[in-house]
C-alpha cells in the first residue's frame, strides 16, 4: 500500500507547482475575462462584454492578421532552410561536421534582446547596413520598422535566425537514425543528390517535420519580444499604426499598458482557443499521414 502511494508522492511536487503556477493562473484568466477588472480599483462582472468588444475591435483583428503574416513569413522559409541544412550536415564527407553542427545553435542561445538591437540597426532607415547596400545599387532607403510589410519581414528574419539551428538539429538527429547504407545503396543505383533528398531525406523526416510545424505554429502565435523591441518610439503598439503588433503584444498593451486586465484576459482566452484549434488540425493531419 505504502509503496503504491509513494509513487504519487514522488510526482506530487510537479503537480503542485504546475497547479499553482500553471493551472490556477490559466483558469483564473477565464474568470478575469468576464470582468471589467482594474487591478488597483473596482472589479465589475460584465459577462461576455469583453468578448463582444473584442470581436468588434479592429485592433484585435489587425493583431491577428499581423501574427499570421509574421508566422507564415518566418516558419515556411525556416523549415525549408533547416531541411536543406540538415541534409548537408548529414553528408558523410563533410569536414568539421561537429563544428558546423554546434555553431547552428549559436543564434538559439543568444539573448533575444541582443538580437533585436543588432537587427534593428542592420535594418535602420538612415544608418542601417542593409539600406547602405541597397543604396549602392541605387535603391531609395526603405523604412522597415515604419512600414507594415517591412516590419513583418524584419521580425520574421529575427525569428528565423533564432530558430533555424534548433530545427536543423532536430532534423539532423532523426536523419542519423536512417542507416547510411540506404543513402549509399541509392547512390550506387545512380540516384543524384536531389533524388536522394527528395526520396530518402524528406520521407524519413516526416514525423519530425510535423512536430516542428506544430511547435513553430504555437510559438509563432506567441511572438512577443521581437515586436516589443523594434519600434522603441511606440513599443507597446509596435509602431504608430500598430503595423507589427502581434496578439500577445496587444494582450500585453491592454493588460499592462492600459491596465484593462479583463479585456487583456479575453484576448488571452482567444489566443488559447486558436492554439487549441491549430493543434487539433495538426493532430488530425499527422494521424492521417501516419496511417498512409
Amino acid at each position, binding site marked *: 500500500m505504502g*509503496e503504491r502511494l509513494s509513487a504519487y508522492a514522488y510526482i*506530487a511536487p510537479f503537480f503542485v507547482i504546475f497547479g499553482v503556477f500553471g493551472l490556477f493562473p490559466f483558469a483564473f484568466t477565464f474568470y478575469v475575462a468576464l470582468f471589467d477588472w482594474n487591478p488597483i480599483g473596482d472589479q465589475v462582472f460584465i459577462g461576455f462584454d469583453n468578448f463582444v468588444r473584442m470581436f468588434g475591435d479592429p485592433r484585435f483583428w489587425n493583431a491577428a492578421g499581423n501574427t499570421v503574416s509574421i508566422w507564415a513569413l518566418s516558419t515556411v522559409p525556416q523549415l525549408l532552410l533547416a531541411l536543406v541544412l540538415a541534409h548537408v550536415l548529414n553528408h558523410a564527407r563533410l569536414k568539421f561536421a561537429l563544428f558546423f553542427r554546434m555553431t547552428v545553435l549559436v543564434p538559439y542561445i543568444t539573448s533575444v534582446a541582443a538580437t533585436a538591437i543588432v537587427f534593428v*540597426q542592420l535594418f*535602420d532607415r*538612415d544608418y542601417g547596413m542593409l539600406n547602405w547596400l541597397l543604396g549602392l545599387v541605387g535603391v531609395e532607403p526603405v*523604412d522597415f520598422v515604419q512600414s507594415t510589410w517591412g516590419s513583418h519581414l524584419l521580425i520574421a528574419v529575427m525569428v528565423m535566425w533564432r530558430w533555424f539551428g534548433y530545427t536543423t538539429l532536430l532534423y539532423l538527429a532523426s536523419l542519423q537514425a536512417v542507416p547510411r547504407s540506404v543513402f549509399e545503396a541509392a547512390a550506387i543505383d545512380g540516384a543524384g543528390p536531389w533524388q536522394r533528398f527528395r526520396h530518402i531525406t524528406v520521407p524519413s523526416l516526416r514525423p519530425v517535420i510535423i512536430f516542428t510545424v506544430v511547435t513553430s505554429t504555437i510559438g509563432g502565435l506567441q511572438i512577443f519580444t521581437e515586436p516589443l523591441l523594434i519600434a*522603441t518610439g511606440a513599443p507597446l503598439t509596435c509602431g*504608430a*499604426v500598430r503595423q507589427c503588433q502581434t496578439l500577445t503584444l496587444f494582450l500585453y498593451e491592454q493588460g499592462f499598458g492600459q491596465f484593462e486586465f479583463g479585456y487583456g484576459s479575453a484576448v488571452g482566452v482567444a489566443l488559447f482557443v486558436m492554439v487549441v484549434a491549430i493543434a487539433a488540425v495538426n493532430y488530425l493531419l499527422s494521424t492521417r499521414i501516419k496511417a498512409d
Partner: protein
Amino acid sequence: MKLRSPLLCVTAVLALLTACTPGGGGGGGGDGKSFEFWSFAAINQKLTVDAYKTKRPDIEIKLTEVGTSTETAQSLTTALAGGKVPDLVLIQGDNLPQFVEQPQNFVDLRTLGADDIKGDYLDWVWKQSVAKDGEVLGVPTDVGGMAVAYRTDLFAAAGLPTDPAQVSALWPTWDAFIETGKRYKQATGKAFTDNAATSVFYQAVNQVSEKYYSDDRKLVYSSNPQVRAAFDLGIKAATAGITAGQSSFESAWSAGMAQGQYAAVSAPSWMLNTIRSTAPDTKGKWNIATIPGGSGNWGGSYLAIPKRAKNPQAAWDYIKEMQSPKGQLEHFTRVGALPSTPSVYEDAQLADSKDPFFSDAPTGKIYTDSLLGLKPFYIGPDSAVIGQEFLNSITNVEQSGGNPATAWDDALRAIKIAIGE
C-alpha cells in the same frame, strides 16, 4: 523514510506558497525608524538619499531603483494589487492619473499635514495629484520646464542667427517655428527638427488652458479647438519636410543627434542630460532658446505613500525635509532637476546657473521662466491614451505615408476604439 521525505517536500512547497501570499489590511505597524523607497534607475536618487542620511542618521532607508519610470509604475500597480508595497514611491507625471483615479490605494497626505506645505508648490503641478474628493496623493519633486536646444554651428551654416535672444525672437509662435524650419531646410537641404509629434504637437498641446478634459472632468478632446489647433500644427510640421522623421529616443534619433542630422530639438530640462550623454562630441555647439508659445512643461514626478505602507510617518518626514523649497534647491545643485517650488526660482544658485555644454546658456533662468505662464488643466484617466493616439496619427503622416487630410478623423476613430467611448 521512503514515504516521508517527498511528503516533507510537498509540505515545504506549500509552506513557501503561503508565505508568498500577500497580507491584506491597513498600513502602519513598522518600526518608524526605517522605510522602503522605490525610485527610478539612472536619476541619481541615491545622492539625495545619502544627503538625508547625514541629516537623520537614525533613519534607515532601503532604496530600490526599480527601472524606468514606466516599469516603476507597473511594479507599483502589481504591488498595490496584492503584494509588498514600499513606504515611499516615486511616480512619473504621465503615470500619475491612473493612480489618482484610485485614491483608496494611497495615504491622503492631508492627514500628515500636506495642506501646510501646499503653498510652496506651483499650483498647476500640485493639482495633478489631487483626487476627486480633494485627497492629496503626491508631492511634486520636480518639473520639466521647456526650451528649444539648437546647434549654433548648423544655424550659422544656414545663415540663421545664433544668439539665443535673436533665435528666440525667430519663433514667438509655433507657426514661426515651422517657418524658420523651412528657411533652414531651404538653405541646407537638411532636416530642421527631429520629429513633429513630440517636438511640436506634444509641446503645443500642453500650452492650452483646457486639454482633453474640461474643468468639470468631461471628455472634450474632439471638440476642443485648442487641441485641434495643436494637432494641425503637428500635421503642418510633419508635411513641411522640416523633420528628420526620427521618433524621440529611438536609436536612429540618438545617432541623428550625434551626427547633426537635425538642428533643433524641443528640450525639457532633463533632456539636457540626454543630449550630453548621447552626443558628447557636440559639446559647446549647442545653445538654448525659449520655447514657441512662451511656456511649457514635459515631465516631473511625485512622491506618494501607499496606504498599506508600514512606516508612513518616516516616509512623510523624508518628503517634508527633502521636498521643501530648500531641499529641492539642493537637489537641483546635485543633479539639475528643476524645483517645483517657485520661491527658489530667484535664488542665485538657480537663477545664475550656466551650462558649459550649451555655450554657457543660463539654463536655470530659461527653464523656470517657462513654468510661470502655465495654466492648470485637468488630466484624466484616458489622457495618456488620447495623447498617444494623437501622437501616433502624426507619426503615421510623417513616417509611414499616412494621409494628412484624414489624420484628425483617423485619430478620433482610434481614440474612440481605445477608450471604448
